[in-house]
């Protein structure tokens, strides 16, 4: 295979930089953001959670 000249200045990943998110807020990140961090590490869907807004009158 002949290498194609690559003039990019950087190689972006889909992994979001989460270092500025306080740890206390991490459980509230969207599933997309979390999956971008975890999908290659533990390749399975995040399941078992009901991600939408919960019933107001219970906790």
């Amino acid at each position: 295979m002949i290498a194609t000249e690559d003039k990019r200045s950087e190689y972006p990943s889909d992994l979001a930089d989460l270092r500025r998110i306080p740890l206390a807020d991490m459980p509230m990140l969207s599933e997309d953001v979390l999956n971008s961090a975890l999908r290659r590490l533990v390749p399975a869907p995040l399941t078992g959670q009901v991600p939408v807004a919960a019933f107001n009158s219970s906790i």
Partner: protein
Amino acid sequence: MGLPALPLRQFVLKVHSRCDLACDHCYVYQAADQSWRGRPMAMSGETIAWTVQRIAEHAKAHQLAAVRVVLHGGEPLLAGPARLRLVAETLRAALAGVCDLDLRIHTNGVLLDEEFCELFAACGVGVGISIDGYRAANDRHRRFADGRSSYDEVVRAIGLLRAPRYRHLYAGLLCTIDVANDPIAVYESLLELAPPRIDFLLPHATWDEPPARPPGAATAYADWLIAIFDRWLAGGRPVGVRTFDSIISTAYGGDSLTEALGLGPSDLVVVETDGSYEQADSLKAAFDGAPATGFDVFTESLDTVGQHPGILARQQGLAGLCETCRACPVVTSCGGGLYAHRYRTGTGFANPSVYCADLLKLISHVHSRTRRPARGSVQPAPAGAAAASPAYAVPAAEFRALAAGFGAASAIGHLAETQDSMRRALLSAVYQAATAVPGAATIPGAAALDLPAAWGLLTRIDQSSPQVLADVLAHPYVRVWAARCLEQLRMPPGERARSAPGLAADLGHLGAIAAAAAIRAGVGARVTIPVLDGAVYLPTLGRLVVGPVKPPSDGEPRLAPAAAQAPVLATLTFEAALVTVQTPGGLYELSGPDLVTGGPGSRDADAGTAWQPVRSLTAPGISVTLEDTDPYRDCHQWPAAPRLTGAELASWQHAFGVAWAEIRQLHSKYAPGLAAGLHAITPLSAAPAGRDVSATVRQAFGAVAAALPDDQATLALLLIHEFQHVKLGAVLDLYDLYDAADNRLFHAPWRDDMRPLEGLLQGTYAHVAVTDFWRARRTAASGPAAETAGARFAHWRDQTAGAIESLAASGSLTPLGEQFIDGMRGSIAAMLAEPVPASQPLSASQPGTGG
């Protein structure tokens, strides 16, 4: 209604329609809708059966991963244990193998007793309790019909849930706001009840029936909540508060945790005691009949209900809001507030919330207080930082250097930064999964773990000493632990019970991580820690031997500490520089500062104490942890060695010093990367045949494991070889270089067995460096040593070149993967151009090969 209907995933079952309290602020009985008067008191067996069938068929048809069911009322405990058992068991049976079930009950607690708690423990039912604060605050509204206080009964019920046997059932507390109550006193009184989470509810109101406000206090509800928020924030967020967490989450681009906030679609339906489907019951506050759909479980499916205009209206996000809301700067967090609170006769629900001014003030305040400066920067991150968080990018020059097989300190630094984010996400995911109700209820032994305390401690250290926490989390085997926990937590409960009986002990390690960070940061702590293999282990610090220490393995590597249904627990307290560890067998006291600095109090157990500190290997320009205490280090292809004796440590130190000198002198292109990214060396037990063994695992970024070889040059080769795997593993954490769905096996010249594509890629990348090692050695050596090195160089460059072409021909590389292969090919091409003597036979076993 531009958007299609979503599947319904939350089901509120009104199992009983009456209540044993007569709270004067109750929306069920005191609001506009009075439909309860015509309904049966309790849900019948037939209605239960139909309801469960509808939920199961809906979950199956939409392939839902999970549903949440809330047993509600009235007062659901009035339904009695037998009826509640029928509901819970019927639900669990119908949904087994279909989807996960998050089953909860919300009660006033008055009737809660051990019989109910045993039932909920058996059926995995989380329990939420309503209480409005301290005694006088609670009794302002929450009284029996005869005026008696309910406070003592409710606190008694909460006490039951706080008992170790039932603590895993304790879902949280709901508090309805009355601005006449002292907000801080309310908050503190709830905090004393040690709930896992709290929520403060705005009393239901509409533009027709506005909420009570003190004269001149236009934002009394915001002011009340802001007082609590500030105390909560200053206290390090000691408990989840759903309203505050939702505002923060939505500001970061995440989901709201409550239907009262955010733009997320509602996927909720209520089933009344007579089997009628209703919309959210908060609509009872709007007008008589407002929640009705006209459908019931006997005749209509949940898909039909999902098409009801009232359900659809609450799934439209921004488009479903009035013009005022759509133009509001905080609409993402507010979402127009609770749907019922928007109602006004004439315009219906096309209005801002009657709490609009309060919500605007509260949300603006929370946003302003939760911005966080970037590490090492004084610039504030914008609100919504998570949504806008930049994706990582590796500069092209550094990516190409990595692809060629090298990578300077800056390239390794880029990879390490990405690991930081992944570790935080992993840690959070483990905590979320471990504490999900009723997930925790299904883990034997987990009820005794106080994971919220450990998590709370971690979040406080993250606020006060973020670099200390980052350093502890960067210990390579923290990620090994976290990934293992998450994999186990994601198993279906039945498989988890079979395959991960020691999960509770694993989860308890969260407390050990928090304790290590607290001791390093000088933050007071009290956490529960498992005793693993006879020791209490503190990552990055060492272990306290409290019993007979088992060898790390009995000849076979294993991925976790020995399985145990109920872990042995220790309580670690750190206060006034003193670390106290209470185990079932005794009390141990250690100096916290000495553990961190290696002072006199951290002497090795060999010297007569129970403490075994983590030790280091050092050489000019490098210092690495010699990891021989971490219980999660025994995760490699080869078994980990037991704790090294002093003499063994000295041998390692000598070999490391000589090997490092060779790396700096002969293989200098690899030295900066190693110095920057090699954090730990884990001694392995020598292989029986005496061959050299070394290993890495993908989850342990920064760690290389090896048995001490006979000569130092081989150690240099093992370190270079294995660190190639570390680098490539981190690249693969960041980029997709190949099609992960390709499950073919490939021949690898250095292995007897066939390898998957990633294995071939890893081995090839390592052998680019192996070839380069022998290239340098043949140049530096003379005589027979040079001849041997030359032969190995010639052999491995040909084999590696062939492997590169196998990868290229696989057809499964991504465009970026092809570029990465090009980098390796370029390095080997330069070596192929070098003249070599006629080929010589090679021994079957060569050092530094494999992978």
